[in-house]
């Protein structure tokens, strides 16, 4: 009887402790939101600097107000010597797909397209893990519900501003890497009541491909039919042929998103 009473008391104690910790955590998050989203720019700047200072390596970059370094243009020219089919306009255009895929994963909690255009290493980066956690949270919540779409969140528009190449690195560790810095504004809505959810973020996007890979000028950005059996894909999100299950080929001239770095004004 005493043991049972102690056990019940212990469970209740743990439960009360859990509530206390949860409330403390919620108060902390509320304070963060008040500071971060309040009217005071000064308080927000202090918060940003503190977060940037404490951030682990490879998750946040301080924003440089300088233009792209001179070596970028030289790097692109060098790339074009090795790969005459490389076109910066087409490359930047294809990076936009990554922005849309990221917005879909982050805002609508659907990462199917993002998974197709990223390297496996992306999901080991701090920001890749954060996206994975958001999507996993939704999937855990949705459970066995049919369909992957989150009916309670809606992505209305993705705006993409001022893309600029900030770094080109060729042949390091067997890979070519291009970093694109741009601002993206996500316009969405969420239930209840479809209230507006607007977010604007500046990120550095790193795209990599194996050194030596060349752009095929005749390769389309996204094939509509399977090269193996000729069956049409049903949508842009199809990862494999619906008929023969052959994997859909890479569609970005080999360039895949390898990491994203949040930009913090410091």
């Amino acid at each position, binding site marked *: 009887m005493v043991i049972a009473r102690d056990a019940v008391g212990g469970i209740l104690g743990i*439960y009360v402790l859990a509530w206390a910790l949860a409330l403390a955590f919620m108060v902390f998050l509320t304070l963060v939101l008040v500071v971060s989203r309040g009217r005071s720019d000064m308080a927000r700047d202090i918060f940003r600097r503190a977060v940037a200072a404490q951030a682990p390596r490879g998750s946040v970059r301080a924003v440089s107000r300088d233009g792209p370094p001179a070596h970028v243009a030289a790097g692109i020219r060098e790339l074009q010597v090795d790969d005459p089919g490389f076109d910066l306009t087409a490359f930047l255009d294809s990076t936009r797909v990554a922005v849309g895929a990221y917005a879909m994963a982050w805002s609508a909690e659907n990462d199917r397209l993002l998974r197709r255009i990223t390297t496996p290493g992306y999901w080991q980066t701090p920001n890749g893990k954060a996206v994975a956690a958001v999507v996993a949270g939704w999937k855990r919540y949705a*459970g*066995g519900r049919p369909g992957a779409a989150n009916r309670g969140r809606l992505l209305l528009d993705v705006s993409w501003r001022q893309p600029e190449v900030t770094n080109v690195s060729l042949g390091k560790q067997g890979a070519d890497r291009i970093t694109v810095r741009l601002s993206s504004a996500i316009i969405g809505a969420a239930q209840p009541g479809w209230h507006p959810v607007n977010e604007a973020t500046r990120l550095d996007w790193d795209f990599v491909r194996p050194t030596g890979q060349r752009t095929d000028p005749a390769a389309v950005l996204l094939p509509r039919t399977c090269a193996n059996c000729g069956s049409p894909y049903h949508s842009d999100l199809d990862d494999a042929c619906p008929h023969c299950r052959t994997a859909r080929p890479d569609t970005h001239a080999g360039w895949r998103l390898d990491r994203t770095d949040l930009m913090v004004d410091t």
Partner: protein
Amino acid sequence: MLRPAGPPPPSERTGCLGVLWLLVKMPFMVLRAVPHTGALLRREAATDSGRRARTWEELTPADDQAAVAAALDEVKSHDAGFDLAATTRAVAGARRVVDQARQAGDASVARPVLSDGLWRVFVLLLDERAAHGVVRQGTSAVVGADVVAAARDQLAEQLRIRLACRGERYEVADGVVLRGQPGQKDWSEDWIIRRSADAATPARGGVLSGLCPQCGAPLQVDEDGSCAYCRALVLSGGRDWVVWSIEEAPW
């Protein structure tokens, strides 16, 4: 973010039992987010939300007119066939086509005018809207167009054309107005067209005139962005102007 919105899955308990169960598990649900605190803080520090985010959507201020004129002269000196008036008219025409695609919820209508990447995101967004029953209402027209920025470097040429629009636009889902409001309004949109620096206006006209810049045939573009006649990829910006970005002020 870690607590997704939406109706509960059918497997969840309902009624008083459901509320009781929710109370029991709530602190543990909250504590599950603790390991992600760092990511949440970093994201919060790097993201502007609500009113602040809306300022990011404001249109980029126009460049100095002298600088724009100089850049346009540079474009003309490299491409004698470049006709600014025809180009701005064509961009206004492209806007009509894209508007039609949005109204109909059919992305394929806009395929011949949008760059490959922009079109893919356009498809993604229209799919997302269709899944949630979002409908765009109202019609509008372009009443003026002005080049507010022009740039040419060794790799590419880019024009930012500001379209003055008049009409009505709003978006509705489940009877709720998501964006805009009914009634006539004036607003501006920036349409950015871009092409590679070594591209030149085809003699008979190109993508924005509805012709293939490679073979000159009336432009019929397959969904993969290739000309239906000669199979050339015409919407990558490598051969001719393409609509590369559409920027709208908050609405």
